[in-house]
């Protein structure tokens, strides 16, 4: 195994050993699940709006190449410069080119998961450019030197007390006050000055409208609006799947997203960005750029089953409802996208050599599938990636990277036993007689019996009992 490969098992063990972290997630996720459920108390309305949003995303993906061309054409007409990036390196290079051209020293950013995927902040910092996250949660994790633990609520792993400590350590003049309003005000004062001084503002995109060339960005803090209107240059980043066909496709997406994510009926801010400042206008950026990132997405698009991964609108509700995510938190995944969507998206982007374990960090409980607002068959894709991980070749990067001859033999043996009634009878008879003598120190039993008693073989199988009771066989 690659020594640098993320080790989910080890990271999750560390997370589980942190009672503060577990408590923070349990409380936060229980709250979010309750708020979401209240939003969709009317099951009929939920099924209707969900079907509509899923249809919007399906239609967009069905025509993706055509819509992307249309998006470029209409953005260009609106004065937005469109850049295509095949890889994250390309995207970072595009960003650096623009920054160098305008001699940028300070960048303010609104929340963008694509730039997390690109590790853009590290790239900018190593180039000597100051970069400041302006979403409060993202600002907190940046101060803390970590990464978002949730795609919508980046600092959800921390409580007020921990944030107060962090601010006290990192911000001069900070008082040690565990008061959310005080801490928010403190961050706001820091950020306000930076917005005014920034050379470039950066943001993500929630939906890009092909027919109008409009970038839609939703947010709650106004920082997104500041980043996209105050600095003289705005650079927006999107994965190529974020395009929708028409303006009327936007409402179902921006309604379902906050309702699913945080249980809000709508976000505080809805920004529709349709180009740079025009002659005679008093505000807005002089330049607007749109960087459209592929980074493996066109490969995902090429497979009709895996393509459904690209329906995602990044609401993060799957994380809130995932019994694994809610136990270990987002950092354990060591990936820009944690939780259920991360477990299917990240292995496809980064390959199964590095990320082949991710699709197994799942009980296949389907809680995510039940609440996904665009009906992504997350667990089916998870199952498909488990196949790809042990099958050389195939549609996913590094297919077969987790193939193991020993595992292969175990399943062949299992199949031989279960596909022949005679073999099955002999094997189950042997297990019934001898199975309970197996020591708890055996592999698998050892892990099992850490917190459970050993499964007890009953001695006689149901086959035996049914035969003894004269239950007909045919």
């Amino acid at each position, binding site marked *: 195994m690659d020594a640098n490969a993320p080790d989910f*098992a080890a990271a*999750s*063990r560390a997370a*589980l050993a942190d009672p503060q972290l577990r408590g923070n997630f349990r409380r936060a996720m229980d709250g979010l699940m309750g708020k979401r459920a209240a939003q969709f108390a009317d099951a009929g309305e939920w099924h209707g709006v969900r079907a509509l949003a899923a249809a919007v995303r399906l239609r967009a993906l069905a025509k993706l190449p055509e819509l992307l061309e249309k998006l470029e054409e209409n953005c260009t007409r609106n004065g937005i410069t469109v850049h295509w990036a095949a890889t994250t390196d390309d995207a970072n290079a595009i960003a650096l080119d623009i920054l160098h051209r305008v001699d940028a020293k300070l960048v303010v950013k609104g929340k963008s998961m694509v730039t997390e995927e690109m590790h853009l902040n590290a790239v900018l910092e190593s180039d000597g450019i100051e970069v400041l996250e302006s979403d409060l949660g993202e600002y907190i994790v940046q101060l803390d030197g970590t990464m978002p633990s949730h795609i919508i609520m980046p600092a959800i792993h921390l409580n007020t007390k921990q944030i107060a400590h962090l601010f006290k350590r990192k911000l001069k003049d900070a008082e040690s006050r565990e008061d959310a309003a005080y801490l928010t005000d403190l961050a706001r004062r820091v950020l306000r000055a930076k917005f005014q001084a920034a050379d470039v503002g950066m943001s993500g995109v929630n939906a890009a409208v092909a027919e109008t060339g409009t970038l839609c960005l939703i947010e709650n803090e106004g920082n997104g609006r500041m980043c996209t209107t105050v600095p003289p240059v705005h650079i927006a980043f999107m994965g190529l799947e974020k395009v929708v066909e028409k303006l009327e496709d936007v409402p179902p997406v921006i309604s379902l997203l906050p309702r699913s994510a945080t249980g809000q009926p709508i976000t505080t801010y809805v920004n529709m960005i349709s180009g740079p400042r025009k002659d005679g206008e008093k505000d807005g950026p002089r330049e607007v750029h749109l960087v459209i990132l592929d980074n493996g997405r066109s490969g995902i698009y090429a497979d009709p089953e895996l393509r459904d991964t690209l329906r995602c609108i990044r609401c993060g509700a799957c994380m809130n409802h995932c*019994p*694994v995510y809610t*136990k*270990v938190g987002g950092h354990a995944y060591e990936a820009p996208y944690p939780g259920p969507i991360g477990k299917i998206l990240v292995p496809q982007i980064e390959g199964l050599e590095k990320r082949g374990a991710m699709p*197994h*960090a*799942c*009980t*296949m*409980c*389907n*809680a995510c599938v*039940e609440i996904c607002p665009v009906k992504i068959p997350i667990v089916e894709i998870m*199952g498909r990636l*488990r*196949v790809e*991980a*042990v099958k050389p070749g195939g549609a996913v990067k590094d297919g077969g990277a987790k193939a193991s001859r020993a595992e292969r033999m175990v*399943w*062949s043996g*299992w*199949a031989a*036993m*279960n*596909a*022949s*009634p005679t073999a*099955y009878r002999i094997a*189950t008879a042997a*297990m*019934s007689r001898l*199975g309970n003598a197996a020591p708890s120190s055996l592999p*698998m039993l050892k*892990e*099992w*019996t*850490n*917190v*459970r*008693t*050993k*499964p*007890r*073989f*009953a001695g*006689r*199988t*149901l*086959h035996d*009992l*049914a035969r003894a*009771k004269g*239950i*007909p*066989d*045919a």
Partner: protein
Amino acid sequence: MDHQPPKPTRVYYFGTCLVDLFFPDAGMAGIELLQSQGLTVVFPQGQSCCGQPAYNSGYRADALKVARAQLDLFPGGDPIVVPSGSCAGMMKKHWPDLFRGEPDEAKAVQVAGRVWELTQFLVHVLDVRLTDKGEPVRVTWHASCHAQREMGVVDEPKDLLRQLANVELVELKREKECCGFGGTFAVRHPEISAAMVGDKVADIEGTGAARVVSGDCGCLLNIGGALEAGAKAARGQHIAQFLKERIHGR
């Protein structure tokens, strides 16, 4: 109901491998519950496993081999009743995918379409009325993920438990949350699985129930084993066995 379809007189029973090895009495109880409604229950002795373990582990060819070995055991059109939401879900929902493009796809789809989870069948097809002869007891219900989300079984088992006059059903706070079994997940990620079953055990303890009743043996191995290992008062039991004991008064 006026428009109830005629009740079948004969059903097949697919016992599942976990019931076979670990909970055969629960399996027999399911058969007897069906017999008590006047049905002929056929238990094909050639049956083994639905194929789910390999299917979910990425070994689809092995899963197919095992699933295929079951296909000819259920000729005709009689319903196939399964005392497990997870195995029923594998057969009903995943067999059509597993056999896609195979020469026996049509047969697999036909068999899949006849699969019922036990409590679903008792409620919706047999419309059973249970008479409780047991002592007063408080129980809680653990809903398996696949029963809920693949078979759509949510209220049926609780409706059956509520028919029992001396049984007080106290629902879990987080009834829909996975217990952490997940097949090989429990041994691939033992610490996370332990944390999950730990939360489940705490939830069960909070109800004050003497028993946690469930319809899936994977969950029961996990939750029951954790209750025992933690020396908790509650014990796990399969719903078929619980119902049978109640209507027989022991």
